[in-house]
C-alpha cells in the first residue's frame, strides 16, 4: 500500500471512530427530553415597518443596534436605516454592484460590505466632515466575499468563495489569520457571543468551529445534503444552527459534538437562505427561497408560524440585539420589520 493510500485509510478510520464516539453519548435525544414540554403556541407576527428605497434585489441585512441596520442591494447601494422612523441615515454608493454581504460594527462606527469584487470594503460612518468614505479595502481573497462580521473596530472576519475565512486587522489592512479547511465555498459565518470562536458554513455541506486566536478548526459538523447557506449561534453560545439548500435547518451542540435535531417539513422544498434565533433561542426564524420565512420551535422542531409578505425570495434575516423585532430582506427590494 502506498504512503498516500495508508494515510487516507487512517483518516477514514479515525472518522469512523469519531462517529462511534458521538453515538456513545446519545443516551437521550433532544426530542425525548422535551417530550413533556408543550410546543409554543402559534406565532403570528405582523409587519410593523416596510423599508423602501432599494431598486433591486436585497442580498444582506445586519442590525447595528435596536434601531439601526444596514442593507446591501444589487442596485449598488449600501443603505443605513433608522428602521424605527424608516429614514435612510446613509445611502452609500458602491464601486461594485455585485455585493453579497454587509455588516455593522458593534460600536456603530463602521459598516462593511463585499461580493464579487473579492474584497471587503470598510466604510467609516463617523468621519469628521460627515461624509461616509471608504476607510479600507481588504483584498487578498481569491474568491467572492460571501459574509463578513466585525469583532470590534479593528478586526473583522470574512468568509469567501475561495473556501477560506480570514481575520483581518483593519488598521493595517493585513490578514492576521487564515482559516483554511473547508472543501467548498464558505457561504456564511457567525461569531460566538464571547467573541473567542466563530462558525462557518460551506458548500462542502459542513459547518466548522474555529478558534479565533490560534486559527485552528476545533470541530466539524456534517449531515446536510447540500450547501449550507446560513449559520448562527444559539444564544447560549453552546449550540449552532445551520440552514441549507436541502430545505432543512439543523441544530448542532458543541459540547456533545453532534447534531441534536433537524427542522424540516415535507411541504417545504426550497432552500434556506438565512436564519436568526429569537432572544431566548426558543424560536428560529428562517428565510427560504419560496418567498416565505418559517418560524420553528427550536426545541420541539415544529413549525409554529409563517411570515409571508414578500413577493420574491427572502435572502436575509436578522433579529435585533434586544430581541424586540426581526427584519427580513428580499429580492423584491423591500425590507420588512416584524414582531
Amino acid at each position, binding site marked *: 500500500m502506498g504512503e498516500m493510500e495508508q494515510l487516507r485509510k487512517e483518516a477514514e478510520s479515525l472518522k469512523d471512530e469519531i462517529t462511534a464516539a458521538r453515538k456513545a453519548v446519545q443516551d437521550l435525544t433532544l426530542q425525548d427530553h422535551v417530550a413533556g414540554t408543550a410546543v409554543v403556541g402559534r406565532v403570528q407576527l405582523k409587519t410593523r415597518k416596510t423599508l423602501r428605497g432599494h431598486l433591486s434585489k436585497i442580498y444582506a441585512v445586519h442590525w447595528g443596534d435596536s434601531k439601526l441596520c444596514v442593507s446591501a442591494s444589487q442596485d449598488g447601494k449600501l443603505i443605513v436605516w433608522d428602521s424605527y422612523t424608516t429614514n435612510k441615515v446613509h445611502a452609500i454608493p458602491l464601486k461594485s454592484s455585485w455585493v453579497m454581504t454587509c455588516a455593522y460594527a458593534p460600536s456603530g462606527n463602521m459598516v462593511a460590505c463585499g461580493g464579487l469584487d473579492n474584497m471587503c470594503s470598510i466604510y467609516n460612518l463617523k468621519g469628521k466632515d460627515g461624509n461616509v468614505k471608504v476607510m479600507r479595502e481588504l483584498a487578498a481573497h481569491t474568491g467572492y466575499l460571501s459574509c463578513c462580521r466585525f469583532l470590534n473596530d479593528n478586526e473583522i472576519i470574512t468568509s469567501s468563495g475561495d473556501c477560506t475565512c480570514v481575520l483581518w486587522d483593519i488598521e493595517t489592512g493585513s490578514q492576521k489569520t487564515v482559516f483554511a479547511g473547508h472543501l467548498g465555498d464558505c457561504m456564511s459565518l457567525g461569531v460566538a457571543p464571547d467573541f473567542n470562536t466563530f462558525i462557518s458554513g460551506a*458548500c462542502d455541506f459542513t459547518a466548522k468551529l474555529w478558534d479565533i486566536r490560534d486559527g485552528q478548526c476545533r470541530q466539524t459538523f456534517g449531515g446536510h445534503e447540500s450547501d449550507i447557506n446560513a449559520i448562527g449561534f444559539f444564544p447560549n453560545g453552546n449550540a449552532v444552527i445551520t440552514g441549507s439548500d436541502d430545505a432543512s435547518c439543523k441544530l448542532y451542540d458543541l459540547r456533545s459534538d453532534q447534531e441534536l435535531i433537524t427542522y424540516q417539513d415535507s411541504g417545504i422544498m426550497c432552500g434556506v437562505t438565512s436564519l436568526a434565533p429569537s*432572544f431566548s433561542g426558543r424560536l428560529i426564524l428562517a428565510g427560504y427561497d419560496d418567498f416565505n420565512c418559517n418560524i420553528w420551535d427550536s426545541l420541539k422542531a415544529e413549525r409554529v408560524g409563517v411570515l409571508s409578505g414578500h413577493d420574491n425570495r427572502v435572502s436575509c434575516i436578522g433579529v435585533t440585539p434586544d430581541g424586540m423585532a426581526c427584519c427580513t430582506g428580499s429580492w423584491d427590494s423591500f425590507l420588512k420589520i416584524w414582531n
Partner: protein
Amino acid sequence: MAQPSSCAQSSNGVADESPNMLVYRKMEDIIARMQDEKNGIPIRTVKSFLSKIPSVFSGSDIVQWMQKNLNIEDQVEALHLGTLMAAHGYFFPISDHVLTLKEDGTFYRFQTPYFWPSNCWEPENTDYAVYLCKRTMQNKARLELADLCAESLARLQRAFARKWEFIFMQAEAQAKVDKKRDKIERKILDSQERAFWDVHRPVPGCVNTTEADIKKSSRMKQPHKTRKSVYGLQNDIRSHSPTHTVTPEVKEPTEDELHDQIQHCQEQLDRHRLKMSKVAESLLSFAEQYLEYDPFFTTPEPSNPWISDDVTSWELEACKEAGQQRVKRWAFCFDEVMKDPVGREQFLKFLESEFSSENLRFWLAVQELKKRPIREVPTRVQEIWEEFLAPGAPSAINVDSRSYDKTTQNIKDPGRYAFQDAQEHIYKLMKSDSYSRFIRSSAYQELLQAKKKVQPQNRPRHTHASLC
C-alpha cells in the same frame, strides 16, 4: 466529516448543474404523482361554446389533490406550494400569463417535460424573437398582451437588425410545422410554449423563478452547458458574464494535508463529549430562563416600541439605573454582569468596597486598549504595565506565572493583544471568586428588591406566544 452525497457534485465541491436542481427534482416527484393514471388529478376535455378545451383540470382539483395526497391540511399552504410549482412552470393557467394557483374553476394544463426548468433552459433573446415573430404570423391576438409583445418585438427587431431575416425565416419555418399539426395537439403545444415563455420572460409584476443567486451561479463550472436554443438555432458566442468567473480548483489533498487531517481527526476524537441528556437539559433551561426576556414571548416593560410607538423601553435600557428585571439577569452568569454597562458599574462599586477593584479596572483598561489607534498603543501598554503588573505597581493584580512571563515578553514588542493571557486569567478569577460574592452582597440584593422605577399602571407582566 460528511461527504457530499446525493447532489450531483464532483468531489471538489463545485456544482455541475443549476443551483435550483434540488427543488426541481422535488417538484417533479410531485408532478409525476399528479399525473399518475390511477391516483393523479383527473384530466379531461371540456366542451366550450363552439370548441373543445383539451387536457385540463381546475384549480380546485389541484388543491383537493394536494390536500389529500401531500399531507397538507391548510388551504393557504396548498395554494402557496401550488403557486410555487406554477411559477416554475410545471403547470399553468390556460388563460392567463400570470402563473399562480387559484382554488376555483380556472383551467390548468401540465407542462410538457421538454419545457421543464430542469432541462436547464436559459433561452436567448434570439429564441424569444423567433417566438414573437411566429406569433404575429399566426395572428394569436386572443391570448396575448398585445401591447407588451409588440413592444418586445420592436425592441428585439432593433437589437437584431442584421439577423432579422434569419429570425424571420426561422419563425416562418416554425409556423409551417405548427400548421401541419392536428388542431387539438396544436392548441396544447401552443399553450405550453406560451407558458414556457411566461416563466423565462415573465410579464411585468411577475417573479422570474429561473434566477439564481449570484453566489451559486458563479460557482458553476460549465455555464455554456445550460445555453441551448429552444428552436435549435446556432448559439452566438456568449459574452463573458460577470457572474461566471473561474473559481479556483480545490486539489486532491497532499500528503501534508492528509497529515493535518489526521491530526485534526485525532484531536476531535480525543475531545470530551457531554452526554446528550445534559446538553438537552441545558438548552431547555436556558430557553426557559430567558423566555421572560424574549420580546416574542413576553411583552417588554412598559411596551414594545415597535408596537406601541412608545420608546420608553429603549430609554430605560440606556439609562443609568437598572430595573429589577435587568438586575435579575446579572445573577444568571458572570457574562451577564460584564455585558451590561450598568452591571459593570455596580460590580466595580462592589469591588471598590472590598478594595479589590484592580482586577476589574485592569480588565476594562485592556478592553479599552484594543480600541486605541495603533500609534497610541505602545504608550498605553506601558502605562497599563506600570499601573497593574510591574514590580511595585500601585494596583498590582495577581496573575499566574505563565501569563506573567508571557506578558513580560509581549510588552517588549507592544501590540493590542499584549495582555491577552493576563486578561483571560483575571476574567476567570473574577468569575470564580468575586462574582459569587457580588451576587450574595447586600448591595446587589438591595438592587434586586428595589421598587420598580417605571410603573405607570400596576400591570402584571404576562406571557403570551402570539403578539398582535
